[in-house]
């Protein structure tokens, strides 16, 4: 990629016309971002069908190395960007969260395809996570099933634009410039179903409620279609399905009492912001105490 100094040049100081291709006056933040966005190393990591399109994007026809993405690292410790390319299953989300925790900051997540963005065509499945953002903060979503290589490139350019907008000076929007290391995202546990440690309290509350309201939550009807009558709406009067072993997934049919729970990523971001603020305060107090001395 050509070094384009004009695009870096971003101050009000005029650069003489004859020097325009040799000199750029810029802010440190911009220089830093410019370097960073042009050397995004994605993790070599594919999940499903979308990964094949990701490989097609990496190969000679679309060639994302033109944007500095070419160094696909197999180890998370050398990667800046996680391209979640495909369906995230409950079984797989555990390693994914672990991998994310191992990536050094600054790190970005790009959700490629409908599946990684919001569950995709397999959303209703019992082993499918409806969107990577339920567990990790996602920076760019690229819809499509699968997104064509050009669509993915567009998403990558969108990510670069996002990086351009970040600033070292402002710890609010990029927490990793603050002091100290960030807390790792809690790794989900594979219990009877996947358990997000951040939701432990809620699960406990629900379990208690279920235990109290035995009648309301403890029994399950046979699905209507199990009756030989083809009518889908026929209400089932069948006995509770004690017959079916190890089955009692009743908790999920309750409506939430308030708030839409799927804005989980917002929570994560909010938490991050608060953490960054705390760090800022910490630094300020340190600075103050240093001055006192």
């Amino acid at each position: 990629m050509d070094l384009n100094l004009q695009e870096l040049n971003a101050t009000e100081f005029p650069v003489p016309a004859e020097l325009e291709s040799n000199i750029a006056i810029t802010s440190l933040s911009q220089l830093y971002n410019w370097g960073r966005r042009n050397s995004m190393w994605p993790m070599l990591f594919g999940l499903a069908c979308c990964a094949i399109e990701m490989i097609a994007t990496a190969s000679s026809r679309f060639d994302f190395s033109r944007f500095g993405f070419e160094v696909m690292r197999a180890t998370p410790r050398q990667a800046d960007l996680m391209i979640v390319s495909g369906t995230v299953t409950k079984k797989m989300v555990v390693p994914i969260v672990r991998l994310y925790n191992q990536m050094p900051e600054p790190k970005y997540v790009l959700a490629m395809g409908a599946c990684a963005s919001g569950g995709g065509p397999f959303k209703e499945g019992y082993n499918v996570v409806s969107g990577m953002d339920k567990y990790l903060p996602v920076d760019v979503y690229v819809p499509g099933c699968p997104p064509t290589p050009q669509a993915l490139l567009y998403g990558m350019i969108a990510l670069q634009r996002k990086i351009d907008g970040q600033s070292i000076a402002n710890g609010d929007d990029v927490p990793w410039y603050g002091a100290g290391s960030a807390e790792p995202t809690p790794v989900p546990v594979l219990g009877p179903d996947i358990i997000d440690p951040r939701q432990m309290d809620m699960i406990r509350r629900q379990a208690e409620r279920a235990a109290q309201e035995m009648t309301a939550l403890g029994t399950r009807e046979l699905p209507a279609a199990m009756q030989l009558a083809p009518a889908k709406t026929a209400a089932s009067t069948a006995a509770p399905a004690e017959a079916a072993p190890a089955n009692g997934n009743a908790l999920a049919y309750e409506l939430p009492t308030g708030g839409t729970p799927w804005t989980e990523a917002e929570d994560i971001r909010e938490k991050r912001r608060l953490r960054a603020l705390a760090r800022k305060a910490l630094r300020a107090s340190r600075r103050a105490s240093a001055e006192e001395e």
Partner: protein
Amino acid sequence: MPTAAPAAPLTNTSIEGAIDHLKASYPDAISADDREGYGGIIVDSAQLLDIARVIRDELGFDYLSSATAVDYLGAGDHMEMVYHAYRSSGGGTLVFKAQTDRDNAEIPSLVSVWRGADFQEREAWDLYGIRFPGHPNLKRILMWEGFHGHPMRKDWREAYYEEELKPFDSRWPGGHVHRAEEKNVFGKNVSYPREIDLSRLMDTSETAVYQSLGLGVDVERVMDKDGFETNELVVNMGPHHPSTHGVFRMVLTVDGETVTSLEPVMGYLHRNHEKIGERNTYLHNIPFTDRLDYISSMGNNHGYVLAVEQLLSLGRRYNEPTYRCEALRVMMVELSRIVNHLWAIGFWLNDIGAFFTPVLYFIQERERILDFFEAVAGSRMMCNYMRFGGLFADLPERLKSVSNLTNDRVRDYNTMQFLTEMVSERIPRTIDELEQLLTQNEILIERSVGVGVLSAEDAINYSAAGPLLRGSGVPYDIRRADPYSIYEELDFDVAVEDAGDMYARYRVRVKELRESVRILRQILPRLEATKGQSIWADGKPGAYAPRVPLGEAYGRVENGKGELGYYIVSAGGRSGTANPWRYHVRAPSFINLTPMGIMSKGYKVADIVGILGSIDIVLGETDR
């Protein structure tokens, strides 16, 4: 003929003859399956094991293609295992079934007869909760150990369960949009059993994996020949590993560099294809099949429409697809076979060290074929091209794009000319280059000859399919052994190599590439000759909700990776709906992994990735 069966006169009888023989020998244990539209026999599960031995040894059905469970809740309230056995010398299928109660479901394991039943029985246990006494390693395979319930049972509901059958009533006419997670207390796709014990939460999935290696706590101590005491080491590869072709995982025990045992762990891409498929209508399933083996979606479409067409042909109002339609199907399937083999060889080379240069050459060719798919079917990978009795659309006159943005670059070729150039020049040239690059390459030969050997007997017994089977010297290609579509009249040879090692599989793939080109050369004139013929028998596209008669069907095709089969039961008890009761995919990538353990025993750790690459799996199909 390398079969495990002793030569007996009965090994050549017809299917009916075989069934008669079985009925004569086991009059009490065998009854014909006389439900409407069904075929084959129902075997008393108490005697299943003996009868299975007879079927294999006396009748010569040495190849167990598929074993799958069906839950007949509401239509007899029983569980049923359905087995499809073939002769490795070709011919039709012997279908036999064993039934059991839904509670306490138990059917004797057939692993001792056909090793190929191993993973399939584990899957039936995992998803249906059928126990298989006699199975050496019966634990969950796709879900994790500790998951609540057996999700494919008809009365098991997901967290996002909405209705039993699609289309859902909430979409129209009062379709007020919401996301499924908004209706869930946890905001996620989860539901917990009421009796969940939160005080003792433990991730049991991992311990189960390691226990099966007999390693749990005590690591076996090995005394080597010099008297050093060494430990066997457990090495975990995957699910995040660049060479596992996706999210596949292997747990190996190694003694030094040598692999002593290998346990494939899968399910990291288990997307509940079958559960969703049983809620879908028949039509809905076609685009879902694209996402099975996403390298060759045309082949997936083909197998599925064949299976449904088998069912449809039981009904009265069914028209065979036209000749042009069949020719187009075959052309698409062969093109995707080329894509598939190029991809498979390329990534296998990646695995054994030729990093990315060959792949890049192959992907260039693939891109051109994908351009063609995109122009004809609308998508590069997820073609969704075939329909019951027809196709999405005929070939366009020109492969053309229109610009809708100022910096769009437009392409425009004549379709037939493009195909001719591809088939007569471009693809053969790539294959030549591939051979020049690799076939005589000393490093490749050293790395692959004699590695990952699978004998012909094992290949059949483990239900290996595709290049894995043919690379072991078994000339079994469904296009010849049990012909479908118009393959019967096409002139091509079954690629076969005897050595059974990685190199032999590579050679089989290269030969198949050439055979595919040969088939394409025969298809193009046929397309020219049928120009103007409709792709639909009655001239207009089929209905979106075809009524499928009662019955069962098993449609199978030779896909790039091997035998891709679809077992479909129509309307088990629900007549007149457009949704399958059972929709099962016999996935070659999944079953081809069964012999992975014996294929890798005794080889070095560095060979393992190569062996896996030479099997050629795609996780979308392995885990479904």
